[in-house]
């Protein structure tokens, strides 16, 4: 596979799918495989790069069985890190999800910088 898809923290996959959008499990597995082969912008997916306010996260929405699942991630060269997978809900829930993903992204980048400095 051309890209290495990973997660931060280790509880994103498959726990968040099982907890929040089990109906999208198969579609998300297909998406992850497509991220591995095609990179961070796989063809045919509804992709949105979120602004600086949301930490520069990338978002893919998947509609499965009339419900929407959302995958928040960020590419780092050949590595793609998933930060949050959740079901699209109310605006308040979405804001919380963005906040969590943004925090996880900052934590990951901080830990990465620390590891590189050591």
């Amino acid at each position, binding site marked *: 596979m051309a890209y*290495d898809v990973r997660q931060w923290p280790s509880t994103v996959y498959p726990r968040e799918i099982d907890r929040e959008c089990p109906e999208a499990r198969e579609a998300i597995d297909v998406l992850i495989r497509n991220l591995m082969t095609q990179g961070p912008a796989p063809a045919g997916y509804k992709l949105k790069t979120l602004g600086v306010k949301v930490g520069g996260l990338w978002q893919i929405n*998947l509609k499965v069985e009339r419900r929407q699942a959302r995958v928040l991630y960020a590419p780092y060269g050949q590595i793609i890190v998933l930060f949050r997978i959740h079901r699209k809900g109310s605006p308040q829930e979405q804001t919380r999800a963005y906040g969590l993903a943004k925090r996880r992204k900052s934590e990951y980048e901080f830990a990465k910088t620390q590891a590189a400095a050591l």
Partner: protein
Amino acid sequence: MTEIAHSIDLNLSQKLRDKAYRRKFFWAESCAQIAKQLIELRKRRGLNQKQVAEMTGTKQPAISRAEQADYQNRNLNTLLSIADVLDARVRVLIEPSEDILREYDNEAAADAAETDAAEEQVERMFAGTEAPSYPIQAETEILKEAQEIGEVAISRSSAPSVIGARGTRREASFQFAASSPGKMVVRTNPYNIEFSQRRLEAENVG
């Protein structure tokens, strides 16, 4: 540099044994593949969705939907008419699940074998029974240098532990403690073997 994010194990060769799972997986996979092919073909013809819609006598949103990876209600006539106006043929390939399962099993076995080989190579290298070879060679210089400095006693502090379960993203990590402030971490994965040196610079060691 060692990647700190956690690997993801899709474990497809196991999951696909479940009929309900593979039914939905194949469906989603087919939809995503059709969408990708339609987009590639349209772009190859230098057309936009509106132009294709006009050529097929539909509206642009219908073409947009057909090009969505998660759209699951395509009909064959729409596909045939899009292929027709884009001067292409539609070829349908129906594959029995047992053939696909075999493919995924082979893929998983190949990944696992590659990982095992990498792990064994590192094991042999540290046991002193094998001279390191590329891609480890350049990185092993760090280890050699550390030993030459003399003040760094490198000893194995933990057994290799497998973090992930499946071949493609499986990793084994080996940790070496040093008597100085230094610490060396070695990670292996099926694609490359990376060494990272933690504060093993001469001033810290000295």
